[in-house]
C-alpha cells in the first residue's frame, strides 16, 4: 500500500495505479523518493517505469546487507528520467536463505554488470540473467566480501 502522503508524487501514484499490490510501502525523505516493491513484481514495475513513465536510464543497482535481520538483503535500483529530471529509488527485500530475485536485464541492458557485481559481492542470484558470474573477484574466490558476516581484516582460522 502506498502511504497517503505520497499520492501527490506523480510517479508514486502512477506505479500504485499500475499495480497496487506491487507497492509495499514508500517514503519521501531528503528530497528523494523511495518505493518498496514486492520482489516478484520488480521486472513488471521497471518495465512500466521505462516504457510508460519515461525513466529511460537505470543509474545503478546495488544491495545492502541487513544481517542478522530477515529478510536479510535489500536490492536497490536507482532509476533516472532524463526528460523529467527526476530520480527514484526502488527497493526490494530478499531473504537471506537462498537469496534470489529476477534480473531486470530484459528492461535495461546496463543491469548486466551491476547485477553481476551484486552476485559477486553479496551472493544474490539473479534469474534470467544472461551471464551471471563473478566480475570483480577472481573466479575461484570463496565467499561474498560485502556481506556483513564476512571479515574485514585477514581470514578466519
Amino acid at each position: 500500500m502506498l502511504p497517503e502522503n505520497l499520492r501527490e508524487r506523480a510517479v508514486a501514484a502512477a506505479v500504485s495505479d499500475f499495480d497496487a499490490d506491487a507497492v509495499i510501502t514508500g517514503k519521501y525523505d531528503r528530497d528523494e523518493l523511495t518505493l518498496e516493491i514486492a520482489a516478484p513484481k520488480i521486472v513488471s514495475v521497471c518495465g512500466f517505469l521505462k516504457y510508460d513513465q519515461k525513466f529511460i536510464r537505470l543509474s545503478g543497482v546495488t544491495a545492502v546487507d541487513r544481517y542478522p535481520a530477515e529478510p536479510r538483503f535489500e536490492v536497490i535500483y536507482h532509476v533516472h528520467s532524463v526528460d523529467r529530471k527526476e530520480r527514484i529509488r526502488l527497493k526490494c527485500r530478499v531473504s537471506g536463505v537462498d537469496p534470489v530475485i529476477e534480473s531486470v536485464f530484459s528492461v535495461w541492458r546496463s543491469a548486466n554488470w551491476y547485477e553481476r557485481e551484486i552476485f559477486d559481492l553479496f551472493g544474490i542470484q539473479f534469474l534470467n540473467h544472461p551471464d551471471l558470474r563473478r566480475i570483480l573477484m577472481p573466479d575461484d574466490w570463496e565467499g561474498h566480501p560485502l556481506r556483513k558476516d564476512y571479515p574485514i581484516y585477514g581470514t578466519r582460522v
Partner: protein
Amino acid sequence: MVLNMGPQHPSTHGVLRLLIELDGETVVKCQPDIGYLHTGIEKEFEVKTYQQGVTLTDRVDYLAPLSNNLCYCLAAEKLLGLEIPPQAQWMRVMLTEFTRLNSHLVWLGTHALDIGAMSVFLYCFREREEILKIFEMFSGQRMMTSYFRIGGLALEPPRGWQNRVKKFLEIFPSRIDEYENLLTNNRIWIGRTRGIGFISLEDMLDLGITGPMLRAAGMKIDARKDSPYSSYEKFDFEVPTRTENDVYARYQVRIEEMRQSVKIIRQALEGMPAGPWKADDQHVVLPDREKMKTQMEALIYHFKIVTEGFRVPEGEVYQVIESPRGELAYYMVSDGTTKPFRVHMRTPSFGNLQATAKLVEGTLIADVIASIGSMDFVLGDTDR
C-alpha cells in the same frame, strides 16, 4: 583468432583485459575482463568513521580525486542536513573544475599518444603539472588531496592563491589553442578518429553510458545543470554537445569542456565570497586550534570528534554529481552510528566500460585503441 589484449597493455590505461575474437582484421566478439584493481573500498568504508572515509574516496578515481571527495562529502552533508558556507561551496566548484581540467588533460595526452601523436602528451602534462602545483598549494598534496571534508574544507585557503590561479588562467586558454593546432585539423588525427567508434544513442542510454560520450551523441545531459549542487546554479556556463557521435566528436566535446571549465574558474576567482570556510556545527566540524587550547567545551568536542567521530541521523541518500567522466553517484546508508552502514559508488567508468563490446564489435582491430581511448575510463574507478 582470439587476441588477448591486456591486462598489461599500454593503451588500456591500467589493468583492463580485453578478449578479442578476430576474423582477419575485424573484431567479431569482445569481452572485457575487469577486477584487477579491485581494492574493496566499499567494504573499507564500513569500518571507518565518516570523516576518515574521505581519504578513501581519493583513491577511487585517481585522476579526479576532488570530484570523489566532493560527492562523498555532499552525500554525508545531505544526511546530516548541514549547511555549507558560500566560500567553501565556491572553492569546491573551482577546485573540481581544476580536477576536470586535470583529468581531461591526462585523457587528451594519453589518447593522442595511443593514436600516435606523441608530442601532445608532453604539452598536456606541462599544464597538468601547474594544476597539480595548485592542488599542492591548497592541500599539501599533489594527487590524493582530500581537501574537501564533511562540513567544508580541510584547511583555510592559502594566502596568495588568487595570484596563482590568475596566472594559470592567463596562459591556459592559449594552451588549449595549442593542442587544437596540433590536432583539430591534423589529417592523420581526423583519419584515425572521424567516423570511428559509433554507437547509437539508444544503445548508449540502455548500456549506461554517461558524460562526454553521451554529450557527443547530442544529448544535453549534465548533472551540474540538471540537479545543481554546491552553488553550480550561480555559474554561467554552457554544456557543449556534438551530434556526430564518433571519437572525433568526443574529442571536440572535451576540448570545449575545458574552455567552459576555464570560464567557471574565472567566475569563481572573481566572485569568491568572503566568510567562513567550514560549517558552523560544533558536533561535526573540528574547532579552531586557538579555541581548542583556550575553551574547555571546544576541547571536549575536539576529543569526541577525533576519537569517536560524529553521529549521522538514520537514512539513505543518493548524491549525483558530474565527474569528468560522467555521472558519479554515492549511495550512502546510515544506521545512526558514527560509521556508514553502507557506501556504494556508482562510478562512471564502470557504467561506460560496459558498452565496450557494443562499441568495438564489427570494427577493425586498429580502431579498437581509438574507440576505447575515447571512453576515458580509469580502472581504479571501475574496479573500486
